[in-house]
């Protein structure tokens, strides 16, 4: 055993790593609970990779898509469980990523030197949304078919290039087996290729700069700040959170398994109450509301422009809210954050009540 350790130590910077882990601390304060959410979304991503690979063993893109998912759900041992875990973990992944992003925002974790962490994080969330969107169509049942058709209205509304983008995604004017093939390529090849290096970079930045302190803690003199050792104390707590998350996924997947609807029929009329998944509900319902206020194509363009502007402001916030003692500017940034949360919640609720 010690020979193997020696062998590794001569070839890898193990001693430095151990020293780094020993030295590293994580701040402990009343908002420390929010530090766990990035880790929770990471676990959900790992579950997605694991269950995704298992689904890949049986899933067939293209014309056989529905039938292969039917097989996974009804014929293959525990296929339903893997599929349900994949679906529930997707939801928890996005939910925890949203919570992580907002907690970073309100703790002002985007300030210097953590801007790159903020941007890479937003990129990961946007890619995560694309993961969700592309994965949702793959079973090709009635619900996923019509929800995708409706969901493609969002990129379609982008001025000038919108139609081109949605046509490329669809592979034609209608959602079809060609769309499944494209979404599949996106879901299992393109997006993971983009996602993995960025997540590596994102984690590297966290190690480099450490956890950001919320302003209320930063004001305190260094001697009054509490912290715990990263290893083993924080890691144990983090693993505890992972265990809880794993339990939640398992409970949800066992008690509320993902169902499979009828095979998609493009000629049939859409079933009542078709709507996108919850993480697109806010955008979807904003488009509808703006569309009502300003009828026609102009309204759609106005709606989508609104998001793009909002997203840009969100991305650029580290350039606006710069100073440690930010005063009014820092307050305004916080109010903007609260405004965004309220708008997202209200539009989501309006979206669901309108069904």
């Amino acid at each position, binding site marked *: 055993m010690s020979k193997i350790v020696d062998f590794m130590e001569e070839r890898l910077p193990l001693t430095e790593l151990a020293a780094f882990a020993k030295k590293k601390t994580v701040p402990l304060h009343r908002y420390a609970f929010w530090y766990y959410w990035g880790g929770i979304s990471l676990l959900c991503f790992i579950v997605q990779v694991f269950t995704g690979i298992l689904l890949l063993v049986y899933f067939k893109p293209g014309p056989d898509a529905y039938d292969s998912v039917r097989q996974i*759900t009804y014929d293959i041992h525990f296929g339903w469980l893997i599929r349900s875990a994949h679906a529930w973990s997707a939801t928890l992944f996005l939910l925890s990523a949203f919570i992580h992003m907002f907690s970073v925002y309100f703790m002002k974790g985007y300030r210097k030197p953590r801007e790159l962490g903020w941007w890479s994080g937003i990129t990961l969330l946007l890619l995560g949304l694309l993961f969700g969107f592309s994965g949702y169509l793959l079973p090709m049942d009635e619900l996923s078919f019509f929800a995708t058709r409706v969901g493609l209205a969002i990129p379609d509304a982008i001025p000038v290039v919108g139609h081109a983008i949605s046509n490329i995604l669809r592979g034609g004017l209608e959602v079809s087996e060609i769309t499944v093939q494209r979404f599949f390529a996106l879901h299992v090849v393109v997006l993971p290729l983009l996602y993995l290096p960025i997540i590596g970079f994102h984690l590297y930045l966290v190690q480099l700069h450490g956890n950001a302190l919320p302003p209320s803690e930063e004001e305190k003199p260094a001697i009054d700040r509490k912290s715990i050792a990263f290893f083993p104390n924080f890691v144990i707590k983090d693993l505890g959170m992972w*265990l809880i998350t794993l339990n939640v996924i*398992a409970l949800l997947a*066992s008690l509320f*398994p993902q169902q499979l609807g009828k095979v998609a029929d493009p000629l049939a009329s859409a079933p009542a109450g078709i709507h996108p998944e919850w993480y697109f509900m806010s955008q979807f319902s904003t488009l509808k509301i703006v569309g009502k206020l300003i009828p026609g194509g102009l309204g759609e363009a106005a709606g989508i422009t609104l998001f793009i502007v909002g997203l840009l402001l969100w991305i650029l916030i580290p350039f606006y809210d710069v100073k440690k003692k930010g005063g009014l500017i820092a307050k305004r940034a916080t109010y903007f954050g609260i405004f965004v949360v309220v708008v997202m919640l209200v539009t989501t609720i309006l979206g669901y009540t309108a069904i």
Partner: protein
Amino acid sequence: MNYPVWEVPIIGGAWVIGIIAIFHVMISQFAVGGGLYLAMAERKALKEGHRDWLPVIKQHSKFFLLLTAIFGTVSGVGIWFAIGLVQPEATSTLIHNFVFGWAIEWVFFLIELTSAAVYYYTWDRIPEKLHLKVGWVYAISSVCTLVIINGILTFMLTPGSTWLGIVGSGHESAYFWNAFFNPTYWPSLFLRVLVCTSLAGVWALVSFSRLDEEAYGEARTRMVKWSATWLAPSFILTPVFFAWYILMVPQENKHLLELGMSTIGSGAFTQVTRLGLVSIITTATISGVVYFFAFKYPKDFTFGHAVSIVFLALCATASTEYAREAVRKPYVIGSHMYSNSVRVSEIPAFNKNGYLTTSMWRPNGLDATPVAVGQIVFRGQCMSCHTLDGYRSMRRFLADRDEKAIGNILKMLREHKEDSPYRAYMPPLVGSDEEVAALQAYLMSLKSAGTPQGLAMK
């Protein structure tokens, strides 16, 4: 149908039993394991000279007494009320078969409750050795209550071929021991003992994590660590005894478990498997959390951790007990009485002469419209599992089915063929042709109107 029917809206009668029973099992199994825990902890403290443990154990015994003697007993009596109302035929069978068993069970209850009170109130008042003896009296009598009730509970799943051979002959009580030491008795007893010791450890963790770090210091840490070891036997042995238990469960019941591996179908088909999964994941998590948080780092163990473990233990108990009940489907007493109180032996007569012929609850004369007759058949044969609008809702089930489809399902349930998908978890439909037609008329009336015509109006 010799007894009145108790209609529980939304959750259904079975869940009334279920909710009370899960609560009761959680407490009573703690009462059994906790008794052993108190005696062993006191013995260890006296033998190894941990005098500082004694006030801590005393504190824990107060919590223990309150929880088991009040909530345990109240919920235990609650089960009797619930099963008497929801499953009177099966309850009657259990009482008639196990008169002696119940009597001795109550003797042990009395000893258990008395000694628990004596144990708590004599702390520091009688010699230490005598006090420890009281603790052992409690521990042994509470284990005895498990030893007895386990025979009756396992009997319901596997009455055993000897008892099934003589049932109805009037000599059932002469075969008491055959029914008592039935095929699943031993694996179930060992499994339950493991659960009891684990729960003792879990509740002790709750008690000791609340202790003040400053005041108790070393004693707190050591007792948290020692309590964690109470879960060790079940980490190692549960898989073994569980495999033994499954081996003794009849093939037709195991079929329910296998069904859920390959398909989700509609909910009811696969409940057992899905609940089994919940039970496995929560149990595995408890092992992990107790090992890492309580055993490896007892100093950092908090009340919050302990409460999380209790919550997980509640999930594990609930899902396991539910799965154990569900695996008995379609019977309430294995191979003898179906879950709707119809005895297997009565079926030919019911089909020949009619289900309601001997019933005290049949509408007469002008009241005997098909819908009214159908409602009585429904209450007798369907309502022990189905509700109108809540759990296993009939209205939801009927919503997208027309008269022909309903007729086909009733036909399938009545024929009860070997390859029928319902056979694994639903009893056969019994009765005369007129009664089945009446049931169909009643089901159709459920579809069309909010309130069914017939007796419900009166």
